[in-house]
């Protein structure tokens, strides 16, 4: 994963609560066996006026001009601001894959669904939780000024607004560290291989039925 650097990006406002992962990337696109290429189908059902098909060229499809991502003023956006419970529903990691493939690097909302929140960090997408009041202010800022941008500074845990305000946010120290350094957390866990093996021996002694069952396949047909 690339190191997560400080950046400034145009903000796209998605003024809805409970945006679910079925909307972020509809199921027909989950048939891909790759991690990339989901960007053209991000919010497919809201973005286009027709039904999207897997592996289709989206360049000629009729656009829903009213949808935020199709409006000229939000082209090149990399920061989304949305309402509470963003990313609810399915565990599909295709949702953050689609957001990052489109160009998003951060999503700001009053709350996120747990699994989506977790998946985002593993893909260089920073979910930022800010209060409903501040999110309201950001919506007003975005709607009020074309080209409204925010600077996202993870190292200092602040979002900087065009009018010079610095909004602090919380982030888990481990996740922050992994994002800033671009670390692979499997590698970090494997550094604890001895602890895992020690636990495994203790666990097997206490609960032997948990082990060796699946390979000893009995056949009830």
């Amino acid at each position, binding site marked *: 994963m690339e190191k997560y650097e400080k950046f400034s990006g145009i903000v796209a406002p998605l003024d809805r609560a409970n945006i679910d992962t079925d909307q972020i990337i509809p199921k027909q696109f*989950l048939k891909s*066996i790759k991690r990339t290429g989901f960007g053209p189908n991000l919010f497919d059902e809201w973005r286009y006026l027709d039904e999207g098909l897997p592996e289709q060229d989206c360049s000629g499809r009729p656009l829903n001009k009213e949808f935020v991502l199709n409006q000229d003023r939000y082209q090149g956006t990399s920061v989304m601001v949305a309402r509470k419970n963003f990313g609810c529903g399915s*565990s599909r990691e295709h949702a953050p894959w689609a957001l990052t493939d489109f160009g998003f690097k951060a999503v700001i909302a009053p709350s996120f669904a747990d*699994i989506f929140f977790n998946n985002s960090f593993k893909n260089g997408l920073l979910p930022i939780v800010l209060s409903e009041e501040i999110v309201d202010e950001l919506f007003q800022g975005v709607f009020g000024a074309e080209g409204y941008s925010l600077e996202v500074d993870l190292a200092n845990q602040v979002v900087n607004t065009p009018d010079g305000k610095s909004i602090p946010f919380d982030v888990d120290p481990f996740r922050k560290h992994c994002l800033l350094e671009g670390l692979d957390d499997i590698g970090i*866990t494997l550094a604890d291989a001895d602890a895992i093996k020690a636990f495994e021996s203790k666990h097997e002694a206490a609960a032997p039925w948990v082990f060796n069952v699946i390979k000893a396949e*009995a056949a*009830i047909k």
Partner: protein
Amino acid sequence: MAGKTLYDKLWEAHLVKERDDGTALIYIDRHLIHEVTSPQAFEGLRIANRKPWRLDTNIATPDHNVPTTDRSVGIEDPVARIQVQALDDNCDEFGILEYKMNDPRQGVLHVVGPEQGAALPGMTIVCGDSHTATHGAFGALAHGIGTSEVEHVLATQCLIQKKMKNMLIRINGDVGSGVTAKDIVLAIIAKIGTAGGTGFAIEFAGEAIEALSVEGRMTVCNMAIEGGARAGMVAVDDITVDYFKGRTFAPKGELWDQAVQSWRGFYSDDDAVFDAVVELEGAEIIPQVSWGTSPEMVVAIDQALPDPETESDPVKAEGMRRAYQYMDLKPGMTMGDVVPDRVFIGSCTNSRIEDLRSAAEIAKGRKVDAKVLQALVVPGSGLVKKQAEEEGLDKIFIEAGFEWREPGCSMCLAMNADKLGDGEHCASTSNRNFEGRQGYGGRTHLVSPAMAAAAAVSGRFVDVRELLANN
């Protein structure tokens, strides 16, 4: 010192290491794998030249993409075929047990796991699917994970976690007859909202939960995620223990006795402290139907649809207006005014043998109404299908005009050919009523299997208890 919750006990029993940064390594006992969220994880292992930590912990089956019609011809959709083939190839290459599409034990993973005794009480169980919460029904810590974590579990047998908070949802007193596990969980979600459980592990308890079978408890825990909680769970009791006796991968002999003794410790102590407690009265729960595009948009069958103008939260009111527009419904209507164009009985929420029995009880001697274009029954696994056929349920359904299909996720998320047409309403026993979930422009109404069957034979949503009274 205060006692421990069920979740506390499961957490502690699998804690490998607490790290200085406040995270913990948690050991994973069982990993369930399907075709949609695993190919990129296997690819990741190959790229990093890593091997699975343990092979004998994994069990796989294709379910999301598989056709529910004749499978001897293979999968027609080329993209789906490649994905199912990728699962077969990955399991073969890495040596992971898989019930392939034409194996009689294939089915929806969350039905197959407990059915085989591969998912057991006291275990940590994960899968790249949010409905993994299902397995909490038997005193396990089970939750969905993303593909990066699928790869992480394959490579390390652990997950990096932060402990969740504890929530207790207690249903006081039993529910009335004709009210099912599905109605209980829909009523819970209507009460707490789709984000009510975010950050929590939910334990379901109380007389109404204790009275449920393990299958009913699976229906309740399955939809914990629709209430925002990654994990839902129910304490181990005699009903739990009896359910697992004799299952393929359940321990046998002395090991069984040892396991049962251990499993019986998985309950919340009387003096355990929960961070949040929610109570519902069982007697007040009647059959439920969702009307909107979020699982919290639910009414009791006799209730008028709510008015957004009387909703004090403006964001919520706007969500309701959008939902009315998408669903083509109006405040003040009742669900009795709505004709289901299609009926779907299936999914990891409601496709087990008891679900099929309950739907068949309503279908028996009745006919699917002419206004209903299609009524599907999709068993949760090949073994559920076989059992149902031995009981003659297939004949009851077919006689009534339902289609009797092969097992899979099917119209719950419409990744295969089973889907709603644009604008069609569906009485569905699945778990999510999101826009387009069951097909482009499709309109989902979540109900219990008995309520779905009642809607099918009535040509509109009705209170199943009225039909039961005439049985």
